[in-house]
C-alpha cells in the first residue's frame, strides 16, 4: 500500500537525476558497445532510430550533471559515454565501397587537376634532367658511369656492342614474368611514396629525385641513340614509361604541394595549410600506386610479350591518352539528387 505512495526519498539531487535517466544511459551504452564490438549493421531498426535521440539526451544529461552534480564518477561516465557515441555517430569513415567509388569518379582526377602547376614543374624538371643526362653522356660517355649505378646498368653501358644492346631490347622473357612485374612495381611504388613524403623538406629532395630520374633516363637514351637504336629504345621504355613516368611526376607534384604548403601557407595557418595539402595529395598518392601497378604489369608482362616497335608505341600512346583523358577531360558535375 505504501510502496507507490512513498518513493525513496533521495536527499541528493544527483541520486534523483541518476534514477530518472540511468535507463537511457544504459541503453545508449549498450548500443554503442554493440557498434564498437561488431558493426552498425548489428543494430535493429529501433536501436538505429533511438541512437541519435539517446545521444542528445545523454549529452544534455552531461550538461546538467556538470552544473548540478558533485558526483565525479557520474560526470566522467557521461563524458566518456558521449565521446564514444560521438565518434560512432560523427567520426567514423563512410562506407568503404562508397569511398572507393568516390575516389575513382571524383576524388582522384580532381586531385590530379588541382596539382596542375606542380605537375608542370615536375614534368619540366624531369625533362631537364633527361636533356642534361643525354647531353652529358653524349659529350663524354664516362659520365654514364657516374650517373647510373653499376647494378642497374646490367651490361648496358657505352662499351657494349650494338648487337648486345639490341638483344636486350627484344630479349623477351628472361626470368619469371610475374616475379619481375612484382619486383618492379614494389620498387617503383616505394620510390614514389618516398618522393612524396620527402616533399616535407620544402620539396628540395623531391626535386633532386625527379632530376636524377631524368638524368638516368637521358643517359640510357644517349647510349642507345649513339648506336642508332634510339627508336627501338623509345618503344622499349615508353610501353610502360608513359604510365610510370606520369606516376612519378605526379608523386613529385604531390611532394611539391606538401613542401609548398609548409613553406608558404598563405592566408591559412601553417598546420591548416598542411592539412589542406595533405587532403589533396593523399588522393594523388593512392592513384600513383595504382598507376605504378599498371606500369609494372605493362613492363613485366606487356613488354616481354610484345616485341614489335610499332605495337609498343601504339600501346604506349593509347595508355597515355587514356590517363590524360581520365585526368583532364572536362566533365559536367554530377547532378546532386
Amino acid at each position, binding site marked *: 500500500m505504501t510502496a507507490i505512495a512513498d518513493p525513496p526519498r533521495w536527499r541528493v539531487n544527483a541520486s534523483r537525476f541518476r534514477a530518472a535517466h540511468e535507463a537511457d544511459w544504459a541503453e545508449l551504452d549498450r548500443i554503442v558497445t554493440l557498434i564498437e564490438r561488431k558493426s552498425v549493421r548489428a543494430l535493429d531498426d529501433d536501436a538505429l532510430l533511438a541512437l541519435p535521440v539517446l545521444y542528445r539526451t545523454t549529452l544534455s544529461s552531461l550538461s546538467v550533471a556538470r552544473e548540478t552534480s558533485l558526483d565525479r564518477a557520474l560526470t566522467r561516465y557521461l563524458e566518456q559515454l558521449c565521446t564514444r557515441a560521438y565518434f560512432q555517430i560523427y567520426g567514423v*569513415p563512410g562506407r568503404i565501397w562508397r569511398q572507393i567509388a568516390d575516389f575513382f569518379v571524383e576524388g582522384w582526377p580532381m586531385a590530379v587537376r588541382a596539382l596542375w602547376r606542380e605537375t608542370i614543374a615536375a614534368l619540366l624538371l624531369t625533362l631537364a634532367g633527361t636533356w642534361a643526362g643525354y647531353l652529358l653522356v653524349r659529350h663524354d660517355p664516362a659520365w654514364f658511369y657516374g650517373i647510373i649505378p653499376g647494378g642497374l646498368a646490367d651490361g648496358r653501358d657505352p662499351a657494349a656492342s650494338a648487337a648486345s644492346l639490341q638483344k636486350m631490347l627484344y630479349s623477351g622473357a628472361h626470368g619469371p614474368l610475374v616475379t619481375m612485374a612484382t619486383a618492379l612495381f614494389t620498387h617503383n611504388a616505394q620510390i614514389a611514396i618516398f618522393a612524396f613524403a620527402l616533399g616535407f623538406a620544402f620539396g628540395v629532395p623531391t626535386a633532386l629525385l625527379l632530376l636524377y630520374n631524368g638524368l638516368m633516363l637521358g643517359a640510357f637514351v644517349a647510349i642507345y641513340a649513339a648506336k642508332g637504336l634510339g627508336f627501338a629504345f623509345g618503344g622499349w621504355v615508353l610501353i610502360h614509361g608513359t604510365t610510370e613516368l606520369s606516376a612519378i611526376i605526379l608523386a613529385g607534384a604531390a611532394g611539391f604541394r606538401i613542401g609548398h604548403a609548409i613553406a608558404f601557407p598563405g592566408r591559412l595557418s601553417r598546420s591548416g595549410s598542411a592539412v589542406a595539402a595533405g587532403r589533396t595529395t593523399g588522393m594523388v598518392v593512392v592513384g600513383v600506386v595504382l598507376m605504378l601497378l599498371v606500369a609494372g604489369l605493362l613492363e613485366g608482362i606487356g613488354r616481354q610479350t610484345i616485341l614489335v616497335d610499332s605495337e609498343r608505341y601504339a600501346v604506349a600512346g593509347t595508355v597515355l591518352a587514356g590517363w590524360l583523358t581520365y585526368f583532364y577531360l572536362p566533365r559536367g558535375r554530377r547532378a546532386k539528387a
Partner: protein
Amino acid sequence: MRKPKAATSLRRPFVTPEGVSLPLDLGGAGERAAAFLIDVILLVAMLIAMSVVLGLMMRGTAKGESEEAIGIVWLLGFFLLRNFWFAAFEIGRRGCTPGKRLLGLRVIARNGARLTGGAVIVRNAMREIEIFLPLSFLGVQAANGLADRFLTIFALAWTGIFLLFPLFNRDRLRIGDFFAGTWVVHTMRSDLGSDLAGDPAAALRRSFTPAALDLYGVFELQTLENVLRRGDGDAIATVAGVIQRKAGIAYDPDARAFLTDYYAALCLRLETGLMVGKRRQDKHGRISKTHVVRG
C-alpha cells in the same frame, strides 16, 4: 599542485556540434611507440607465417616454382603490409590498428569530422620518412662499414628530426598526423559507479553538525569519492581518522560506513549551496558563483 602536469597537458577540450565540450585524452609518445612496435612484430610474424605455409604447400612442386611463389609473396606481401597494413585498419570503424587497440588508442580527425580514407593514407605514407628513412640510413651505413662517420651522424641527426617529431609538439603529432589532420586519442570507457550518496537511510544513522560539514569543499568531496570508490581499507581508515580528529567526532570503529555517511551529508550540503549559486571549491573556502541553477 593538485594534478600532475603531464596528465593535464595531454587533455584537449573538444566541442561537439551540439555545443557541449568533451575532453579528449591524447595518446602519449611512449604508448604510441609501443603500439607501433606491436604492429611491426605482428607484421613480420605474418610474413614469416605466410612464407612457411607457402613453402609447405609447394614442397611437392619443382624447386624453381616454389621459390618464385615465395619470392612474390615476400615482395608483394612486404609492400602491401608496409604501406597498407596500418591504413587498412585505421579506415575501419574502430580507427585503430591491432597494436593501437591493445593499448586503447584510436585515430580521429582533429576537427572532429569524419576520418577520410585519404587522411589515413597520408598519415601512413609519411611513415616512409619517419621510420624507414632513418632505418635505411642505418642499414646503408652498416653495410658500408664506418666509411664516413661524420656523414652517418649527420644523416641520423637529420632523420632523427622526423622520428622524434612527436616529442617536439604539444599534441604529440607525427608528421603524418600533421598533414592528415588527425590525432591519436585514448579510447576511454568507464563504468557508472554506484551512487555513494544514494542511501536514504544515511541521515538516520549518523548526523553531522554544520561545523563538521563546513570543513571541506568540492575538491575534498571528490577526493573522498575517489578514496571510497577505490576501496583501499588503509586509506579509508586514515581519511576517516583525519576527519574525525578535525571535526571533533568520537572514534568510529566502522570507518567505511562512517566515511560513506559523511560523504552523503557533505554532498548534500555542498549541493544545496550549488542550488543557490554558491560553489565552494575547496577547504580554503573560495566560492565561485555558478551561472546555471537548476532544481
